[in-house]
């Protein structure tokens, strides 16, 4: 299977192309990780394989712990291909723009998903409103794109998930930062408790003070 034969991708992401694909009569998504000439070939090949494995393993674990993800149909680690269920719907990012009230409800669910994954030691690694899809058929929220997932995550890596989600709000939906963040954190603490969340938030704060030029400490997450 080569990219040429698949025609024009449905979505051209940074590291992978997504194609609509017919898998044994089912409408599916074929995700293929494209080699990058800007990476040394030895690094590139290993990285793409690692990400295919990480994605598949993380998705299986997610399913086991009650996080909705597309069902995986087929994996080819040599060609860096994953074929999975096609989820018809909108991204949470789109929903924020169209219907903020509903988006807030899904943000709570996303918070519970994130906490369940973290309980299972999985850090998503790219937690944004673009990687959560609201199914138009079932109304369920699906979490996608686990390529940067960490399967034995530390508290710090879990804190980075929360940092990434906050940042996706700050950069993409700055006007709804608080509206979206509150339910997310409430959903999170409903699974793992306030104490764990507070500990993670203090790590988030450390990370933000370290890598960034921060003028003043922000308090959007309701502490202090």
């Amino acid at each position, binding site marked *: 299977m080569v990219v040429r034969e698949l025609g024009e991708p449905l979505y*051209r992401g940074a590291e992978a192309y997504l194609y609509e694909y017919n898998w044994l009569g089912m409408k599916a998504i074929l995700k293929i990780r494209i080699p990058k000439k800007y990476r040394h070939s030895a*690094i590139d090949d290993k990285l793409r394989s690692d990400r295919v494995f990480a994605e598949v393993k993380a998705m299986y674990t997610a399913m086991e712990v009650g996080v909705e993800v597309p069902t995986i149909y087929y994996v080819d680690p040599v060609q860096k291909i994953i074929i999975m269920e096609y989820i018809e719907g909108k991204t949470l990012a789109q929903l924020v723009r169209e219907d903020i009230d509903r988006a807030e409800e899904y943000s709570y669910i996303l918070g519970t998903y994130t906490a369940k994954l973290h309980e299972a030691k999985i850090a998503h690694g790219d937690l944004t409103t673009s990687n959560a899809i609201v199914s138009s058929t079932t109304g369920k929220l699906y979490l996608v794109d686990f390529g940067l997932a960490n399967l034995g995550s530390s508290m710090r890596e879990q804190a980075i998930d929360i940092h990434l989600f906050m940042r996706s709000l700050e*950069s993409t939906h700055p006007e709804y930062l608080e509206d979206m963040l509150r339910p997310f954190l409430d959903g999170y603490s409903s699974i793992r408790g306030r104490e764990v969340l507070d500990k993670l938030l203090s790590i988030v704060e450390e990370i933000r003070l370290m890598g*960034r030029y921060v003028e003043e400490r922000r308090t959007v997450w309701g502490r202090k």
Partner: protein
Amino acid sequence: MENVAIQNSYSIPISPRELYPRLDWDRDVIVLGIESTAHTFGVGIASTNPPYLLVDARSTYKPEKGGIHPREAASHHTRRAPEVLREALEYSGVSIRDVDAIAVALGPGLGPALRVGATIARGLSVYFGKKLVPVNHAIAHLEIGKLVTGMKDPLILYVSGGNTTVTALAKNRYRVFGETLDIALGNLLDTFARDVGLAPPYIVEGMHVVDRCAEDADEPVLLPYVVKGMDVSFSGLLTAAERAWRRAGERDKPRICLGLREVAYSATIEVAERGIAHTKKRETLLTGGVAASPILREKFREMATYQRVRPGYPPARLSGDNGAMIAWTGLLYYLLGVTIEVEDSSVRQRWRIDSVDTPWL
């Protein structure tokens, strides 16, 4: 003592009228800008009339051992400032009386170094009766980059000693889409080079010593590659590379340099690529001190091909710290009437780009 480095002609591909249609380009305005945030003391002069950037003069502090010491950088700036300033004026033929305003980088940067530029700017402002214009150093990198590449709305990868940032305009500000979770790309390369004994000097004939060391290897040592969302993390990479170096024989050392360089550059380019896919911008700009690296530029071009966007970067002299960018950004502010009083002009060491309004856009 080295001479002051001067340049007075840069090509400007499209008229600033097109880039900044909201500003009144019929006014005759000249702004002198002062840069002193880190190792460079620079003075530039910008005008609303061609050739827009009239002069770019600078003197750069180069530590004999170790890294940048803030107080030594400040003492260098204090010693060299009068000469840089004088040469900038002489070279451009601009009299200080023709200057309408003094722009100064008030941050982000090293406190002691910043204060030298701020003090000189305040002095010039008060003594000659010129308006004072506050400029954010990082924003200045972005604006001069847009000017010399003719880009209106790029996804920007800003890489320097202290910054690794993926940013673009969204909702009236430069929003930060990604950045480093720990240390910056330039800091990674410099710290590694210093710790293993390759530096100082850090740059030899326009190339970083880590790039040079990597030239003798074909196969990289595999080191941890960490990308999270649109963020990179380099502290694990630094530790792993230094540990590998201590264990390595002479022959394997270039392979470690190559491994470090390849992982660091690729991960940085990857987050920019993710930024482009996310924001759907049609052009992309590479700037900051590390943007002078020919190897990073090549990778950046290749990445732009995948995303079908136009890549661009300023000439090496303008991607690093310089006074011209402060003068240019100060000019944009001045055209909008943004000035500050001397007593309000304190330096801001941690002045974030996403806290700055961009009314000229």
